[in-house]
């Protein structure tokens, strides 16, 4: 079934009736987004069904050993989408019978999406799952694939079939500033206004990105940043200089007024910062 519209929703804002989609760019994004979905479910004492392609997967978002009543791990292996759907349906019915107020299911579709012969079956099962989820007052589903391992046309087909696209939860959000992790490219998306009132949250978010990364470039998407103060520019330049010898800090989609301000004070005062992608009027849709 084709969704004619879609919304991007932070993973913690997913609710019952959502049949959401995530095309992961790698382990870090999987950990961050799927981990939040699992963790929020377990903390709320909802039923969590984690469907993995591989046996004995490492479940993101799990601390310690959750009780098997709360967390069920299904190994779908290469049995095909139909069997996985049957197993999930059975688990959901059992959870509803057991009186869970909420049931969360996350499925790895990577294996099925890689096999062109399974596409019809996969799409049929996904549509069946949609019929199960949409009217439900308890069930939410997060379908996921490893984007690097699935052909682009299969990713497009699956994306179009899901009306909700799961996004990372913001690292920080208030009425003035929002900071969200990005994974492809690695970095942060900054929206709103940034000044000394919120330098510490930028510092923390940058530290998180830098702590987990390799030496590759770190990108800051500034398309929605309406104001940045000199202190925050100093912080960015300091971070860039601490990474001397490694890839630069790249400023993507800088608004023109920020270009103007930096040109006035001089780029030579911000060594290690690089201008990346230009701002565009119609940003390309995110996966």
């Amino acid at each position, binding site marked *: 079934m084709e969704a004619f519209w879609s919304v991007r929703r932070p993973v913690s804002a997913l609710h019952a009736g959502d049949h959401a989609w995530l095309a992961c760019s790698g382990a870090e994004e999987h950990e961050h987004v799927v981990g939040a979905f699992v963790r929020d479910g377990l903390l709320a004492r909802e039923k969590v069904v984690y469907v993995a392609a591989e046996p004995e997967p490492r479940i993101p978002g799990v601390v310690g050993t959750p009780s098997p009543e709360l967390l069920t791990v299904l190994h779908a292996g290469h049995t095909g989408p139909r069997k996985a759907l049957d197993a999930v349906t059975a688990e959901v019915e059992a959870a509803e019978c057991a009186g869970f107020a909420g049931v969360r299911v996350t499925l790895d579709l990577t294996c099925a999406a890689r096999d062109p012969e399974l596409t019809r079956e996969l799409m049929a099962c996904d549509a069946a799952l949609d019929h199960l989820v949409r009217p439900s007052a308890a069930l939410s589903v997060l379908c996921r694939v490893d984007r690097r391992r699935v052909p682009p046309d299969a990713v497009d087909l699956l994306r179009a079939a899901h009306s909700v696209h799961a996004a990372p939860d913001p690292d920080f959000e208030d009425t*003035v500033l929002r900071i969200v992790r990005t994974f492809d490219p690695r970095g942060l998306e900054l929206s709103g*206004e940034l*000044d*000394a*009132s919120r330098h510490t949250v930028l510092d923390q978010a940058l530290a998180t990105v830098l702590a987990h990364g390799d030496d590759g470039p770190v990108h800051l998407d500034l398309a929605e940043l309406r*104001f940045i*103060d*000199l*202190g925050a*520019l*100093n*912080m960015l*330049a*300091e971070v*860039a*200089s601490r990474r001397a010898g490694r890839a630069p800090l790249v400023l993507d989609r800088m608004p023109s*007024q920020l270009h*103007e*301000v930096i040109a*006035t*004070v*001089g780029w*030579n*005062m*911000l*060594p*290690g910062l690089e201008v990346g992608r230009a701002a565009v009027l119609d940003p390309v849709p995110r996966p």
Partner: protein
Amino acid sequence: MTDAPRPFAHRLLPYEGADGLLAGAVPFLRAGLADGDRVLAVTSLATRVLLGDELDTGAVEFLDPAEWYAHPARTLAAALADADVAAQRGGRLRLLTEPTWTRRSAAEVREWQRTEAIVNAAFHRTGAAIMCPYPVRSTPAGVIADARRTHPETVRGDRVVANPGYVEPHVYNAACDRDPLPPPPASAETLRIARPDLYWIRAYVADWARQTARLPEEPLQRLLVAITEIMTNAQAHGAPPITLRMWTAPDAFVCEVADGGRWPERSWYGFVPPPPGVPGRLGLWAVRLLCSRVDIRTGEGGTTVRLAVDTPGVRADAL
């Protein structure tokens, strides 16, 4: 190459007539060309023609005085950046700058005189060689007298002599700010700040600037960055009460922050840009680049930082 840092020089060339100018400027430029310096000359067209008759000026970069003498802080920052780059490459920047003193307001003259003094502190690290020809006949006597306070040396014929009246730049700078600022107009928009989110201060300034002063977006954005920096400083280092005032002057939008604190003695007040390659130094000097003018007074009665952005041709609604 391990050259020792070259000695900094900032020389006054008071001259009468073309011969006097050439007698000082030609050897100065020739020495730079011989040494492989980067040689810049900010001169009138007439001087450029005279120089071209005397030496091969193919390697001299001539710049338009009207552009060069547009904004003291920006000119200083740009020239200093060039001097730093030259020094990093083991070379030297050589500047011949012919200031234009006529048709300037007293306030403008004072700012350029101040810049002449600041040059001594700012360029010292670069080993730059700077010569400033002053035409004695067409320059007010007071301006020549002050040039002897802001230039460590004077060129007389082929001799270089120390200026006995040379004043240490901190002292000269402080003297420039001896007079109190003119009081804000009674109609100035006044807001007592009680440590709210900086976001709200910006929103307030932006609203007022757009609606009452019709400030265009580009200077408004520069002003917002500047006022945020000044307000951040006042909240971090100043003392209450903090007061924000805004008003429109002819062809300018003015915004000032007053607080009860006092700045330490011998501050450069952002006049001297930091050395290159050290991140994290954007601050008050960057505010000077962003605004058309920045005036600071600090003392027993507290501190006032007054920012102005020029708005030529913009008519304010009120005031």
